[in-house]
């Protein structure tokens, strides 16, 4: 059982984020490619959510009163698998099959995988389901909270704003949006301007904090600042894709990273070195 009732220190969470990055690098290294840049970028947020916010028993995945984390960006699945492996839900043997033919851990997340709450990949599907879950849990008198990760690219989907409108209109205290703004999308740097992100969420009736999404102290402080506020809450996380591995960060801010086989050892060393 993962004890997440105790809030962890910035130092502890930073260490966990590093372990998540290490797991992601190993999964991608075996394949030579993947959505590793995005995964590395949100590792800090995932560590903070899963190890300091979520009330969640990894041995009771069907607990109806569990807090839920919804990954709306299905292609970030590598990051979620790293979390689930770190929690002991997935084994190392399983994560080694990431994105292989016939694997239960596909490159885009399916809810058949233990610990994965929704099938995502068609973007703009996460927040609305989070709204429905938060409504349904409130109706049942459950204390559970729903955290929805989504990306800056998904802010271009109209469905995201339909859902954002509903969340505040329904006064959903138990809903959080964790918006990963990494500045890239499939065709390169943001092809459609979606700023000012924080102002948009605020205008839709959400309580908002904006942080450097690769600064654990800022992330932890944002959760603390918003916790207990009425209505839905959003944290805008400005992240750097590939954070933790300078060579990946430098690689043309890539949406889909391909790395030559010989390079992985060097990149893994970079990750350890960078962590210090």
């Amino acid at each position, binding site marked *: 059982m993962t004890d997440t009732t105790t809030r962890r220190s910035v130092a502890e969470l930073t260490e966990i984020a590093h372990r998540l990055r290490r797991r992601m690098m190993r999964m991608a290294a075996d394949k030579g490619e993947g959505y590793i840049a995005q995964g590395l970028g949100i590792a800090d947020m995932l560590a903070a959510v899963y190890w300091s916010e979520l009330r969640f028993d990894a041995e009771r995945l069907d607990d*109806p009163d569990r807090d839920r984390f919804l990954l709306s960006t299905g292609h970030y699945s590598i990051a979620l698998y790293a979390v689930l492996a770190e929690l002991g839900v997935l084994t190392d043997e399983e994560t080694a099959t990431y994105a292989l033919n016939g694997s239960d851990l596909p490159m885009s997340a399916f809810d058949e995988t233990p610990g994965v*709450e929704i099938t995502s*990949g068609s973007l703009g599907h996460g927040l*609305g389901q989070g709204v429905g879950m938060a*409504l349904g849990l409130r*109706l049942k008198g459950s204390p559970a909270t729903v955290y929805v990760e989504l990306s800056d690219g998904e802010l271009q989907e109209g469905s995201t704003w339909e859902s954002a409108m509903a969340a505040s209109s329904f006064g959903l205290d138990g809903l959080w949006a964790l918006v990963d703004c990494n500045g890239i999308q499939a065709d390169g740097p943001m092809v459609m301007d979606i700023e000012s992100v924080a102002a948009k969420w605020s205008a839709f009736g959400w309580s908002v904090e904006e942080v450097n999404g690769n600064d654990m102290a800022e992330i932890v402080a944002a959760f603390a600042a918003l916790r207990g506020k009425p209505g839905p809450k959003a944290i805008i996380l400005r992240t750097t894709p590939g954070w933790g591995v300078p060579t990946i960060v430098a690689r043309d801010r890539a949406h889909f990273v391909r790395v030559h086989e010989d390079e992985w050892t060097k990149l893994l060393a970079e990750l350890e070195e960078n962590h210090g």
Partner: protein
Amino acid sequence: MVELKNRAGGMGEVAEVAGPYEVAPFGTALAELGKTMPHLVGVTADMGRYSDILPFRDAFPDRFFNVGMAEQDAIMVAAGLAKVGHVAFVATYSVFLTRRALDFMAIACAHSKADVKVMGGSPGLVNPYGGTHQALEDLAVMRMIPDVTVIDPCDATELKQVVKAAAETPGTFYIRNIRGKVPVTLDDSYRFEIGKSRVLREGTDVGIVSTGFMTARALEAADRAAEAGVSVGVLHVPTIKPFDTKGLLEFASRYPRLVTAENHLRAGGLGTLVVETLFDAAEARPVIRIGLRDRFHPCGSQDYLDRMFGLDTDSITEALVADRWDH
């Protein structure tokens, strides 16, 4: 000359009928089920009034959610409600769901086998507002999505039973919802069962295979054909998916010729299913498909549109008795 009512009003209600009817069978049935199913919830997208879900809202206001004009969100919210243990009925016009929110029905609902029951209002040619409001292709679209049960009920009696069956059966459903004063055609002894067709009448010359309220017209047309000396059997197929292949083949084996009748495009719905099924089983025989052509349809009252585009009882009768079997 056919007398036409010069009226294109009526928000998606079927044409007024002379016989018995029930008001708002969907919402009434849902409100009744809500008493014993506390996890039943309702969702609409600013179409509560025009989808007949209001009896449920009035009985259980805290279990009813109106998301405004946002069909994608309506489906996502229903999926979210289902994924925390509720059974969610979503009701608005079919066109807005099957055209605008298809991806969300496919992935947020069907892919997860979520307990979302989509009530598609104003199906087929029912709506007077023309191509923008008429869901002519909804059955074809929805039956192409894996893991969706697709049902087109005949009348108020069947619609109520379908709502109950959908509420009690896990998974994602698409149900055509006819609203307002809904005719009662089938008697109290009728029993709907998911995936089962029903022989409503036996004959010898021609078999009609029909779905939705076209079955009521098929029964009427069969009476008229009998007067003309043609003996007609009627197979009612409320469940489009999963399709009752066995039931169809048994029925078809007794008739040299078939007519299919649906309030839908001739392509992609019941007629297509019947032809595919017969052909696959090497039981091909002459089939006349009654349904709508590949075009957008104009505004107009349902009587007017039915006659103009061949969904009325006269058109079915003509297919049964006329010498159209040579080509």
